[in-house]
């Protein structure tokens, strides 16, 4: 780190050897050629994708729009959409990696075609991306888009901080993408246990990529959690009492509280690992008093609440979807709220079940085993509530409903295997086998991913003003469900047969048939992803037939459906008054929806800010420089970050005003549309005639 170092190695550890095809060109054995070609292709896709996107933006003269309408925007709706875009891009990558892994294991008898290191990189990036750069941005995006409107607010409490969170998350995602091109990613799994991830055993840049990508993302998530919690506590419309909030907002609140309390342990764990690696500290080393178990504890003190951070919002989506497409108020609203809160609290008491086999005594294991099983109770309450919501409802089998019912059926199975694993004596038998892999995918894919996709289909017409193609949507949903079953049910059996997780190869011929089935499942999931892409393209092509600008295509129940689609930047012409749960349904039934208010007032909105993208760029540069140990750049980026924050303190004039006249004009345009549009019944929900105005049945008393 001395001055001479900086002059002699201005690019730190960066060199030609960092390129993915370097090893192949120096030592062209067959395995090196295969691995190098796969890595090289991935790098080309990453670089090529970036070049094509940049080219398209240039061709359509989109840079100015991109910068001033999107990247610097502090509008919670645009930030939400950008989060979801990140989630989809990262999902595509992690899914391709999953298919490669299944292919490797399908042909894994005696070794497979990938080198063990390459395989280890694949499962490490797959896990890291799916948790931190798919699930987290997806749920953050959905909450960002929907929650402020559900509580009748104009934006989140801290719009600029929101944009900073997005910038940091994007920087983390970009860092992981760069690891495809320069150097290689960690081989230590998504939880990166030391001592394996210490300098002594992993001297390369991989673990450093992992550390800094996670640090950027967890910092962003901490800010997001604070922002969401404060928004829900402070920005609710008059009359929107806590017990009148839509269930999705409740789950957003619980997830936000979990983020506030669960992110710091991760920050500490990765920071201490970084100190070990960079400055020779001894937190988790084998020698000189380091204690690797301490990392494991810290990581799962974050890691277990994290499971509920990602799953609770998905359950909120299911609650909205099932109640809306059943045309009924949510069954057992109060019990759902209490169950959500109970799960949030319990989530902090079970972290030890991730390492029952790592040496604590039987009594401690028993306590944590029982605590883990307890979570099954509130979860069971929820499952029954969702089922009872559908009973005697007017259920429509739309795409989000296909996901929801697939979720209920599959998740119960995943929950059952969770109860099995919560028993330490059973855990000892199947620990570290693919049984565990099957279990957590069985809760994470139907539990989280299906929920996020259901939410994407549900709120897409709100965000863009037209509905997604149903035929492709249902086809994709069925592919997800069938592909999931094919890919993961065999792993339960393989796990009991003794196949260790993360095996690049194996010697038992008996594994092969089931591995082949699992590979077929991965291919079906690949088709599902492809179908999602085609669906989007088809829907954009046919958008004129599927427009629903009035904004309420599904006869929605909460306030976000009461505005136009897409909504104006200030969401509501005047802040609504709330008197009941299911505020918009009540308004429609009492004939109070789409009314002109007595008077319009000026609306204060936050101005755009360059702080988010600028801090995102500096964060990325800092992390990149740290990974490659380019010290002058580390110093420069740190200084730049500090200066930016200080200069920001001197910024004034941070708001702009939407005049009462503009708000009135905007609202009257919507009211005019309401007047001329046909109100449609639920039978025509998917027909072109559905422009987003729902026909009201006979008014009935809603308690």
């Amino acid at each position, binding site marked *: 780190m001395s001055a001479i170092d900086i002059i002699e190695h201005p690019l730190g550890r960066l060199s030609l050897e960092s390129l993915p095809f370097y090893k192949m060109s120096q030592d062209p054995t067959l395995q090196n050629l295969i691995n190098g070609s796969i890595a090289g292709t991935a790098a080309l896709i990453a670089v090529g994708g970036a070049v094509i996107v940049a080219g398209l933006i240039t061709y359509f003269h989109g840079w100015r729009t991109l910068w001033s309408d999107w990247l610097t925007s502090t509008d919670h709706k645009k930030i939400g959409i950008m989060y979801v875009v990140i989630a989809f891009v990262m999902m595509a990558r992690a899914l391709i990696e999953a298919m490669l892994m299944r292919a490797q294991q399908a042909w894994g008898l005696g070794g497979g075609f990938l080198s063990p290191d390459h395989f280890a990189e694949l499962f490490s990036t797959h896990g890291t991306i799916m948790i931190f750069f798919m699930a987290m941005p997806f749920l953050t995006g959905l909450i960002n888009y929907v929650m402020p409107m559900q509580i009748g607010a104009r934006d989140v409490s801290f719009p600029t901080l929101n944009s900073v969170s997005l910038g940091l998350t994007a920087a983390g995602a970009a860092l992981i993408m760069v690891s495809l091109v320069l150097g290689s990613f960690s081989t230590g799994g998504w939880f990166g246990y030391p001592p394996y991830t210490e300098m002594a055993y992993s001297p390369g840049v991989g673990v450093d990529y992992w550390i800094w990508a996670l640090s950027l993302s967890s910092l962003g998530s901490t800010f997001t959690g604070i922002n969401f919690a404060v928004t829900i506590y402070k920005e609710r419309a008059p009359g929107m009492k806590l017990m009148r909030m839509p269930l999705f907002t409740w789950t957003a609140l619980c997830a936000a509280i979990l983020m506030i309390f669960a992110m710091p342990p991760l920050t500490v764990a990765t920071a201490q690992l970084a100190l070990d690696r960079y*400055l020779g500290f*001894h937190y988790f080393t084998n020698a000189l008093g380091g204690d690797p178990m301490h990392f494991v504890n810290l990581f799962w003190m974050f890691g277990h609440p994290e499971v509920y951070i990602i799953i609770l919002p998905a359950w909120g989506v299911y609650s909205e979807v099932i109640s809306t497409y059943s045309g009924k108020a949510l069954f057992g609203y109060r019990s759902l709220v209490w169950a959500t809160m109970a799960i949030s609290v319990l989530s902090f008491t079970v972290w030890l079940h991730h390492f029952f086999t790592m040496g604590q005594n039987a009594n401690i294991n028993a306590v944590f085993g029982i605590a883990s099983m307890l979570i099954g109770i509130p979860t069971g309450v929820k499952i029954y509530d969702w089922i009872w919501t559908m009973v005697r409802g007017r259920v429509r089998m739309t795409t989000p409903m296909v996901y929801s019912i697939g979720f209920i059926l599959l998740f119960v199975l995943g929950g059952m295997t969770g109860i099995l694993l919560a028993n330490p004596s059973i855990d000892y038998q199947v620990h570290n086998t693919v049984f565990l892999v099957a279990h957590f995918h069985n809760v994470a894919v139907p539990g989280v991913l299906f929920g996020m996709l259901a939410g994407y289909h549900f709120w897409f017409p709100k965000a863009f003003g037209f509905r997604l193609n149903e035929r492709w949507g249902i086809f994709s949903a069925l592919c997800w469900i069938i592909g999931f079953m094919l890919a993961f049910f065999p792993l339960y059996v393989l796990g009991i047969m003794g196949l260790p997780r993360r095996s690049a190869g194996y010697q038992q011929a008996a594994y092969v048939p089931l591995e082949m089935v699992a590979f077929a499942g991965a291919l079906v999931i690949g088709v599902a992803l492809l179908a999602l892409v085609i669906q989007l393209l088809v829907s954009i092509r046919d958008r004129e037939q599927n427009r629903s600008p009035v904004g309420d295509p599904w006869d929605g129940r909460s306030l976000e459906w009461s505005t136009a689609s897409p909504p104006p930047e200030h969401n509501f012409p005047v802040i609504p008054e709330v008197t009941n749960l299911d505020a918009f349904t009540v308004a429609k039934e009492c004939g109070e929806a789409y009314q002109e208010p007595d008077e319009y007032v000026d609306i204060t909105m936050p101005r755009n800010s360059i702080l988010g993208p600028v801090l995102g760029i500096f964060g990325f540069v800092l992390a990149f420089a740290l990974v490659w140990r380019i010290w002058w750049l580390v110093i420069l980026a740190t200084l730049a970050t500090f200066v930016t924050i200080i200069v920001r303190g001197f910024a004034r004039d941070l708001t702009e005003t939407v005049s009462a006249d503009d708000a009135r004009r905007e609202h009257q345009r919507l009211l005019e549309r309401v007047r001329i549009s046909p109100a449609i019944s639920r039978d025509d929900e998917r027909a072109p005639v559905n422009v987003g105005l729902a026909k009201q049945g006979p008014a009935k008393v809603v308690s």
Partner: protein
Amino acid sequence: MSRNYQNFQYPGLNLGSAHPEAHKAAESMMFGFWVFLMSDAILFGMVFATYVTQLHATAGGPGPQDLYDIKSVFIETMLLLASSFTFGMASLSMKYEHGKAQLIGWLTITLLLGLAFLGFEVHDFLSMIDKGGAPERSGFASAFFDLVPLHGLHVTAGCIWLLGLVGQMLRYGLDTRTKLGVMRLALFWHFLDIVWIAIFSVVYLAGLA
């Protein structure tokens, strides 16, 4: 917002009816900052946990008895407590509108006390490294150099923030944003005082007992 913000009170110093605009704007802002401090407290909690679990992991190297200097630490404690008092005076001076000069005066004293604290602390660290207690030496030394300098870094950040705020005062006077800045920095500063008391008790007093 139909809530009557005049009646709204949050933990800590409230600006009240003499500063209606800032008092109203403080509602979300101060609550948000309290939430941030909760998250920060968890961060410190985890680092304290690291220290306690690594306390005996000296790996044959020097331990607390060999490294800590209670005299210096006592002076640091007094400096930090005094700086919390002077910050309290600054907050009161802002609330009761005793003028920009007095406010900047109290803040400057606070800054000087903070810098003096940091000076003594750096001196402590250097002398510990001198005695063979550098962080590379053992798990215990690593844990110490995680916890105490983390607090020191927080104080450093607080000092930079204070300078930024004084700069904003000179540029814009006492506008709403500056007032909110002072109120948040005050919470931050007192919070670091509480963390220091925990460090003084858990690290130094318990270590030398």
